[in-house]
């Protein structure tokens, strides 16, 4: 452990050389930018910038590319808060409280707590990476298809926390998500489902397109109805937290850090999972769960922290075992190899400068991002003051562009428009949107993992033979029962007081 800290100091010396700080800054800035623009995510941006790194030293190249990755996590918050359009699955839950905050003129608060949370999450997860890497990576490998399935069941139970006031409407939303996830080829059997003969749909729908349609476009459509009314925030409220908000926000940041870090370790997860679990957990722990969804800072802070500390966690399997946990990490792994480095335990021995330089640069990068984001939060917050008449066309263009870049085709734009109309209708029916997007992400993985588990074990024995799996499933069942019970007693009391809203 002491040894690791010593090496970290050496790495820090590399990371704070002026050139490397510059590269780190470029990476973070590009990451922020692609985070703000939906469509091009950190994965694509990293891939596209790899050719630019040919002439750079390996350390600088990796430092810059990593910067894009975690910089993107910061940037994704901005569109979710300001225009209710998550650029990626991880930011879906950020919309739930971030956008209401912006509507109250408190976009600055949302962006600031997200920036501070991301910073804390980022830094804590890097410490985790330094101190705990090897033993944790081996533990994470225990997550095979059966364990993955149980984790996803757990995630699904967490979606229940996002369903809003009405159980029925929440279920409708969940089923829409399941339905959308069925489109495309099933990896396990190879069967092609619900593609209506279009080969563009063989790969399934894209979460980015769905999010932009359901969230962004539908928001515009609803807003168009009362364009003439001046319901815009006239002044930006103070971007400081209120006194009573400090406690829960700090708590949610700390819990989010740990959650994100551990989820990052598990191969095959997505950063949407820790964000979702963090939100549900905060809601459950909160003294005023009914306020979630109306715009409270801890609803933004927890998930945003979790998706940033996820990054640090996800680096561990890459550095120690050479396993890419997520699509972006897989691209980073390609970049390592392009520079003649093979990620894995030998990398620590053969090229400690690269490994520790990169890790140390993540400290630097997080500081850069914090410095960039906190003052910028006030600037961004002003976007909330732009009259809708001017804002909507811009958002529409960004959304269309974003959908187009998903696969460079107008087909995705069409899907986005359809999702927008569906989203509009669902909004009119008061059906919550977030479960659709999250269930979509989770159920695809869930179906795959259960089928794999059944195939490997020739039955369901994989589920009850694994302690991790059983534990997760039991917790899930308990959560589900508690939620159902709470819902039931809630309904009853609401019925008695005949207060429907």
């Amino acid at each position: 452990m002491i040894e690791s800290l010593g090496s970290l100091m050496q790495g820090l010396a590399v990371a704070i050389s002026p050139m490397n700080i510059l590269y780190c800054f470029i990476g973070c800035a590009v990451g922020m930018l692609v985070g703000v623009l939906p469509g091009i995510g950190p994965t694509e941006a990293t891939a596209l910038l790899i050719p630019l790194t040919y002439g750079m030293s390996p350390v600088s190249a990796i430092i810059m590319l990593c910067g894009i990755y975690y910089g993107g996590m910061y940037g994704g918050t901005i569109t979710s808060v300001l225009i209710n359009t998550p650029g990626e699955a991880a930011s879906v839950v950020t919309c739930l409280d971030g956008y209401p905050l912006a509507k109250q003129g408190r976009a600055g608060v949302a962006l600031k707590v997200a920036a501070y949370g991301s910073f804390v999450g980022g830094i804590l997860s890097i410490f985790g990476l330094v101190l705990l890497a090897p033993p944790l990576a081996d533990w994470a490998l225990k997550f095979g298809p059966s364990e993955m399935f149980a984790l996803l069941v757990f995630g699904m139970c967490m979606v229940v926390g996002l369903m809003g006031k009405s159980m029925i409407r929440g279920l409708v939303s969940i089923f829409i998500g399941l339905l959308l996830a069925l489109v495309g080829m099933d990896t396990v059997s190879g069967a092609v489902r619900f593609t209506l003969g279009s080969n563009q749909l063989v790969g399934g729908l894209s979460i980015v397109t769905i999010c932009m349609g359901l969230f962004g476009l539908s928001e515009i459509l609803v807003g168009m109805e009362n364009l003439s009314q001046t319901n815009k925030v006239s002044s930006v409220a103070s971007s400081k937290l209120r006194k009573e908000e400090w406690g829960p926000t700090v708590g949610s940041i700390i819990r989010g850090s740990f959650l994100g870090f551990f989820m990052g370790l598990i191969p095959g997860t997505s950063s949407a999972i820790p964000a979702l679990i963090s939100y549900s957990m905060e809601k459950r722990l909160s003294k005023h769960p009914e306020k979630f969804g109306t715009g409270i800072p801890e609803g933004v802070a927890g998930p945003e922290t979790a998706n940033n500390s996820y990054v640090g966690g996800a680096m561990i399997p890459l550095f120690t075992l050479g396993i890419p946990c997520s699509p972006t990490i897989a691209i980073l792994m390609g970049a390592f190899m392009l520079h003649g480095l093979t990620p894995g335990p030998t990398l620590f021995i053969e090229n400690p400068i690269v490994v520790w330089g990169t890790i140390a640069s993540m400290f630097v990068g997080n500081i850069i991002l914090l410095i960039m984001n906190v003052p910028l939060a006030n600037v961004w917050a002003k976007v909330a003051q732009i009259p809708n008449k001017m804002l909507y066309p811009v958002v529409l263009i960004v959304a269309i562009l974003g959908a187009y870049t998903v696969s460079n085709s107008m087909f995705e734009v069409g899907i986005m428009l359809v999702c927008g109309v569906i989203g509009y209708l669902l909004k009119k029916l008061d059906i919550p949107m977030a479960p659709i997007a999250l269930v979509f992400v989770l159920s695809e993985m869930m179906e795959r993992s259960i089928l794999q588990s059944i195939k490997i074990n020739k039955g369901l024995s994989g589920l009850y033979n694994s302690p991790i799996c059983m534990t997760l499933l039991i917790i899930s069942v308990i959560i589900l029962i508690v939620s159902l019970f709470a819902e039931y007693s809630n309904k009853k009391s609401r019925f008695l007081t005949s207060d429907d809203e």
Partner: protein
Amino acid sequence: MKNSKLFVLFLVVVFGTLVLSGFSSVFAADYPDHEITIVVPYNAGGASDMTSRIVATGMQEALGQTILVVNKPGGSGGVGMSEVRAAKPDGYTISYIPVEIVMHETLKLSDLKSDDFDYIGQLTLVPSALTVAADAPYNTVKEFVDYALAHPGEVTIGNSGAGSIWHIAATYLEQVSGAKFNHIPFDGAAPAVTALMGGHINAVTVNAGEVLSGVEAGKLKILAIMTEERDPNMPDVPTMKESGFDVVIGGWGGLGVPKGTPADVMEKLSAAVEKATDSQEFKDFISQRGMVVCYKNSADFTKFVADQTVFFTDLLSKMELGG
């Protein structure tokens, strides 16, 4: 008066432009006179994408024109390749063509056929490697197959998706050896390798490049590689052939243009590809990713694709897929 003069001028300009542009396409000696697009039918950042981008840089130097690389993912490559098939056969729209082209028809992934394209040249060979956990009780393919024969249907082999090239590779080994495996599809090669490291499956038949980190970490061992000859980057790893199983199978990638592209354009492109694949940068990249540089010229590649079409159609017809 003034208007009619303007109109005449307009006609002259329009007509002139049409004639000139017509000429330029007749005399392909001018080729290429504007930028060329290479469509990669997969996501940015994957092996196919990176291969294309490096080749594009090399071709750009050789042809003296900008080459854009555009990703059109979807439908196991079907979306991007269909688009190129429908493009004008003038050499300005090129497609990266993966091994999957010879399977689309049989697997009913799209209506693409391998003779929808004219082939410029082959770039790479992506060999399959039989890899198992380092502490597995078998050290050779022979021992592995014997174990599988003794435990029919119990040995689990991970691949990157049902009907994927690595699934087919494992099935081919099954056919040649007579063993019966339990094929487990994953969403890509990396998750399959991760599951192997975690001890959730017994083997994978994915590309050697995907398992190199695991081998270096001491968690995995490669039993054999499914190529004709040993890979110079892994001189200790025997081929399947040496081990007594005639299994030569793997993915490959090349470049193609829509059918009917003029012969002189093809010549220029082919020469540019040959030059690009000969660069040190390309060679380094390909070998680091566990692939093999395998340049074939237009004629050889066309013949190779035709042979592969017959081979895979036959193999796939014996597999149970799409259930």
